[in-house]
Each structure stands twice: as C-alpha cells, then as structure tokens.
C-alpha cells in the first residue's frame, strides 16, 4: 500500500474553471422527461456544464491557472513543476503539459508532463507534485497542478449510462513548500476492474479506423461508438461502496485520525446514491460532505478541486480536509491536508 506523508508542503490556492454553457437534464431532447426525473432523483445530477466544440480541457485549465497566478501574484518563473492530469488531452502527442508551459509563459527550467488519470487523478497529481517539490533544495519551491477533463465529448447521447452524468471542468492548484504543514496520502490500484470504465478504441491496442464510428451496444439499451466512454454502473457501484469506506477507515486508523480531526470529506462526485452509501458507511454527517453534483455533474478528474472551490470559498477558518478520488483504473486514493485560512479558493467561467 502506497501510504506516505510529505512534510513542509501546502496548498496555497485552487481555482476551478467551468464552461458557461449549462445544460439541464430535464430539458435535454436526448433524454425522455420521465427518465430524466428518475436520473436526477437517483444520481443527484441535474445540470451539466458543457464546452463548445473547440474548447479543450487544457483551455479550461489554462484559464484557471492564469487566474490563480494573477490573484496570488506569483512570478511565473518561480514555478518549477507543471503537472497536467487529464484523460482528454489536446493531442496523442506531445504531452499537453508542454503546450501549457509555453501558453502560461513558464520558464524552460520547468519540469512538465501529463498524467493519464481520471476520478482519482487529483489525489494522484497532488502526490506527484508534492513529492517532487519535497526534493527541491531550499525553502522555496512552487508547483502547478492542472487537472481537468471534457468527458462530454466522449459521452454518447444514445448512452444514458454516461451522457446525463458527465460535465466538463478544469482546475489549477498551487502547491508550495511551507514549514510545518504536510499532506498525507494513501493510493491504490486494481487493474482487474479496468473494463468497468473504458474507451477501447483510438489508442494503439485498437487503433482508430473507420469502424469506430459504428455504434455498438453492450446491454441492448445504450449505444455508443468505440471511441466513446463505456461505464458499467453496477461494477463501479459495487467497487465504490465496498472498497472506498474500507480505504478511508484504514487510512484514518493509520494516521490516528478521528472524525473530529476532519472538517470536510471531499469525495469524487460520482453519483449521489453511491456517495451517500459511502458517507453513511464511514459515519460522516451530511454537513461534512459537500456536493457539486446537482449543478455541475461528474466532472471526472476535476470533481475534487471544483467541490473544494464551490463549497469552501466562503469559509474563513482553516479546515482539515480528507479528499478521496475513486474510479477509472480502477484506481483510488486519499489525501489529507490543511487548507489555511488565507488559501485562495475560487470558481470562474471560461
């Protein structure tokens, strides 16, 4: 088990960025009204923010990063690490992080690369940036963690197991060295469950060819192209309600954390039915578990930063938060850290 703690590191600011175009599941012509009502009741998802065709994850993250750098008055040349976590990159190659280094005007001395992770991606990305900064000599060191996805582009309107559930968002987090602060992590993988959430074509195992535009069905009800997202809701659900509460309980035991040490549990926003099962199993009160599902849907890797900026921006006291991402991979991870009173938290629209 990858359980570790990085000392002298903290999160100084998070900016999330969503597209302005808001789609209402109740008004969407691709979903029958009666069905839409059912989806909203069970998943908690009503609205989705959807990007225009020419807007990518990196555009959302770039806007978030510009706002973050400006508001915190950071000199871009101080940023030594740039990590971009996404499953919807601009190109197959080069890594989108290299494009973002240039677009953001960061120095050539920046280490920049992509990480291909989804639901657990924020926690994974944070662990990588924090670990790298811990090895930067001296008291200074700043890293930029950009996390975002545009899953709406791979969710087929004829597949109601994905289409009504996903929105788009990007985020930027500034991580820096700070004496006395720390972040603890616990990260997990179970590749046996990989086929529960997948896009099977368009890579090099099953290259893009003319057949990928044919629509297929695995359950006789929902249809998608081979380059679209497939999600086995039942398998993801049984994974979520069993593994996640266990992982959180084990982490709290290892870290000797009581519920009173945790001000907020920030979960990946999968769907309300599953998340509520998880919440009840770990015995957390409703007040401690904020949601952004209703207004923003599941925004893949960006759910955790978006839920932080949306639900905690108005708070002016320091908070200890336990973040837990889980899903595609299957991969899951926990991060526990303190958000200082003066941390910048903001949601913007592109």
């Amino acid at each position, binding site marked *: 088990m990858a359980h570790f703690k990085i000392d002298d590191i903290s999160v100084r600011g998070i900016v999330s960025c969503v597209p302005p175009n808001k789609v209402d599941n109740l008004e969407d012509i691709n979903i029958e009204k009666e069905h839409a009502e*059912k989806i909203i009741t*069970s998943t908690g998802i009503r609205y989705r923010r959807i990007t225009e065709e020419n807007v990518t994850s990196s555009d959302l993250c770039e806007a978030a990063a510009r706002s973050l750098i400006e508001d915190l008055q950071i000199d871009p040349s101080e940023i030594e690490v740039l990590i971009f976590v996404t499953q919807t990159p601009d190109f197959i190659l080069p890594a989108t992080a290299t494009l973002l280094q240039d677009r953001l005007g960061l120095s050539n001395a920046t280490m920049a690369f992509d990480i291909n992770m989804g639901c657990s991606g924020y926690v994974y990305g944070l662990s990588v940036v924090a670990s790298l900064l811990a090895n930067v000599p001296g008291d200074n060191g700043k890293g930029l963690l950009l996390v975002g996805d545009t899953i709406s582009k791979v969710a087929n309107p004829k597949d109601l*197991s994905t289409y009504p559930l996903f929105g788009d968002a990007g985020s930027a987090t500034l991580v820096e060295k700070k004496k006395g602060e720390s972040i603890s992590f616990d990260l997990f993988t179970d590749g046996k469950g990989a086929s529960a959430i997948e896009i099977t074509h368009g890579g090099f195992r099953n290259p893009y060819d003319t057949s990928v535009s044919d629509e297929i069905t695995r359950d006789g009800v929902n249809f998608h192209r081979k380059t679209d997202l497939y999600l*086995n*809701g*039942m*398998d993801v*659900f*049984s*994974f979520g*309600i*069993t593994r996640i509460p266990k992982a959180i309980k084990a982490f709290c035991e290892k870290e000797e954390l009581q519920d009173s040490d945790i001000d907020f549990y920030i979960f990946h926003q999968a769907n309300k*039915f*599953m998340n509520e*099962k998880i919440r009840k199993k770990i015995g957390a009160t409703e007040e401690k578990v904020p949601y952004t599902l209703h207004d923003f849907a599941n925004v893949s890797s960006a759910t955790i930063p978006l839920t932080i900026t949306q639900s905690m921006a108005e708070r002016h006291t320091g908070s200890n938060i336990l973040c837990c991402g889980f899903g595609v991979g299957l991969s899951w991870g926990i991060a526990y850290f303190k958000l200082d009173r003066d941390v910048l938290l903001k949601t913007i629209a592109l």
Partner: protein
Amino acid sequence: MEEFIEHFAEQFDETERSEFSASTEFKELDEWDSMLALTIIAMVDEEYDKTINGDDIKAAKTIEDLYKIVENK
C-alpha cells in the same frame, strides 16, 4: 431464503409483495431497472456483508439464483 426474498422485495416500491418468490424472474418485473440493480447490490452489501457485481446480476435469472450466488461468495 425467505429472509433474502423479504429483503429483495423491500427494495421495490410498486411491485406487490405477493409477486416475489424464489422462482421470480426478477429482471422481467416491470419495475426492474438499472437503479434497482444498484439497490440490490447495496442490500447484499448491507445485509450480508458480501460484494456482488454486474456479472452476478446478469448470471441470475431468479431470486433463488441470486441467493445462491450470494451464499457462495
């Protein structure tokens, strides 16, 4: 088995209790949908502390089939 049928039936809102027996082909019930499948997975987790997945639901035709799958976990 009786207890399992009872728990199974409790997950349904519209279907009469009398419609549930060991030989009920539950996926043929009007009320059955993907959401109910999730509540059954959750019920098995809560009541029996066992994990069933999509393939288990797929493999079971009757409530008894599912009961046996749960028993063997």
